[in-house]
């Protein structure tokens, strides 16, 4: 590649620069111009009411001030809320992770026939297309306030997320192992158990741990719309202007998420 350049000027040292990420200069600079134009338009047209923002700041300060020092005076409420959230998160993760496996198999193009593949993809796309809060509102309407709505919501959420990533993992497995199992005369399910599942196992464990994390966090959010758990407790605390208790709840949520992140990281490292 560099040769013709070299022949033209044999004396000068050859140079090299990293090829640009987008090869076409027109597209490259065009994108920058489009981005700049968008920012100007967005900031120019969105209604920022500076007056109200400046009025709101002292109120925010008051809420924060009311939150300090956080108090654990209603510790029993906090405990019940958290236990329920934990139960919701763990149950939903278990159910979701188990159910995500068949859907992931269905949604992997390399091992599923076309109609099954489309069905599997459809299930995953639908369960991913709504944010858990919206799904929780639907389930609260369907099965009433309480943890059941939370469990159903997060199970669906887990199927969508884990199923999608697992399907992609299945599509990237080493096909040789599948060929080897087929050539022994193994049937479809035996091939799945021997050639596919061992290959996706580490990923599945990692995803499950991540999903548990994520469900813990989400269980607090879906509680706010009435699906049980610490979210409901938090909402009540805010409603009663118990800012110090609400802040205590927030701090405990952070602590729990940190702890679960640490544990899941450790488990993922161990399993590999």
């Amino acid at each position, binding site marked *: 590649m560099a040769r013709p350049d070299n022949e033209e000027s044999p004396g000068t040292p050859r140079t090299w620069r990293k090829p640009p990420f987008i090869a076409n200069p027109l597209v490259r600079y065009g994108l920058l111009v489009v981005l700049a134009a968008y920012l100007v338009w967005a900031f120019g047209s969105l209604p920022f009411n500076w007056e109200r923002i400046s009025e709101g700041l002292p109120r925010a300060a008051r809420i924060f001030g009311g939150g300090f020092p956080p108090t654990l005076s209603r510790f029993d409420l906090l405990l019940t809320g958290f236990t329920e959230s934990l139960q919701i998160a763990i149950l939903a993760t278990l159910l979701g992770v188990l159910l995500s496996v068949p859907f992931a198999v269905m949604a992997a193009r390399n091992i599923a026939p076309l109609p099954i593949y489309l069905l599997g993809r459809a299930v995953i796309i639908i369960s991913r297309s709504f944010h858990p809060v919206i799904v929780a509102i639907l389930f609260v309407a369907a099965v009433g306030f309480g943890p059941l709505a939370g469990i159903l919501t997060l199970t669906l959420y887990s199927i969508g997320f884990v199923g999608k990533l697992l399907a992609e993992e299945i599509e990237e497995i*080493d096909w*040789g*192992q599948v*060929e*080897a*199992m*087929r*050539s*022994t*005369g*193994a*049937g479809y*399910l*035996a*091939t799945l*158990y*021997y*050639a596919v599942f*061992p*290959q996706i*196992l*580490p990923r599945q464990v990692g995803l499950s741990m991540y999903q548990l994390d994520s469900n813990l966090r989400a269980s607090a959010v879906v509680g706010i719309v009435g699906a049980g758990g610490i979210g409901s407790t938090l909402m009540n605390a805010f409603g009663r202007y118990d800012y110090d208790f609400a802040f205590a709840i927030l701090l405990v949520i952070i602590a729990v998420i940190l702890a679960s992140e640490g544990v899941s990281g450790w488990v993922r490292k161990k399993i590999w």
Partner: protein
Amino acid sequence: MLVISNLIKRYGRDEPVLKGLDLAVEDNSVVAIVGASGAGKSTMLRCINRLVEPTSGSIKLNGTELVTLRHRELRRARRKIGMVFQGFNLIDRLTVMENVLAGRLGYVNLFQAITRRYPAADIERAFVLMERVGIAHYANKRADELSGGERQRVGVVRALMQEPEVLLADEPTASLDPRTSEQIMVLLQSLASELSLPVLINIHNVAQARTYTDRIVGLRHGTMIFDGAPSDFDKDALEAIYGGIEAPEDEAAPPPEEVRDGQA
């Protein structure tokens, strides 16, 4: 006895990869199939156990037509066709024993397979075969902890667990160093006579083909252009098979008495 007649394989609308191949292999003989990359060696082998669907033609194993089989009959037929792969294709995360027992997957039911409750006779056979090739002490090791030569032995034992009536080996030595690849060739050769199995070996290393097999079949562009004893495989045959094809130097005419490095 394996009889292939007028085998044609065409991918899509392209030029056929196999153009009417005829080949008969007696029991108890080791046949090397040589040819440049893309000559159709691998496709031919995979047509036999239907990992690749033949476009037309007939393949008969001990009288059973393989090309028309479907579903259950196909799986039953595959049990009788052992295959050894270039990349070993072991299940890396399972133990050596599980990999070896996987050769019985065509015989056991799904429950036995998942719970690893294989019949005692299978486990005994697994130990006997692993001892035969010297890997019995690795039974509980994970397959990816073994060296290349050891892994290929696991691959061979897995194929033999099927109690095959024919053994297919798709470049079984191409991922191995020269010394180990010779050991694997010796192993295949002696197993063929011990178990009186026909063995078909796709191989790039012409020197090894000449040393360890009874018969050489040369493919070029999907057509058989040589079929004869290793002693008849001379410079002209070599030229006919590899000549005019880019970069055949790695394999070109190593001295027959000394096996040189067959570069994968």
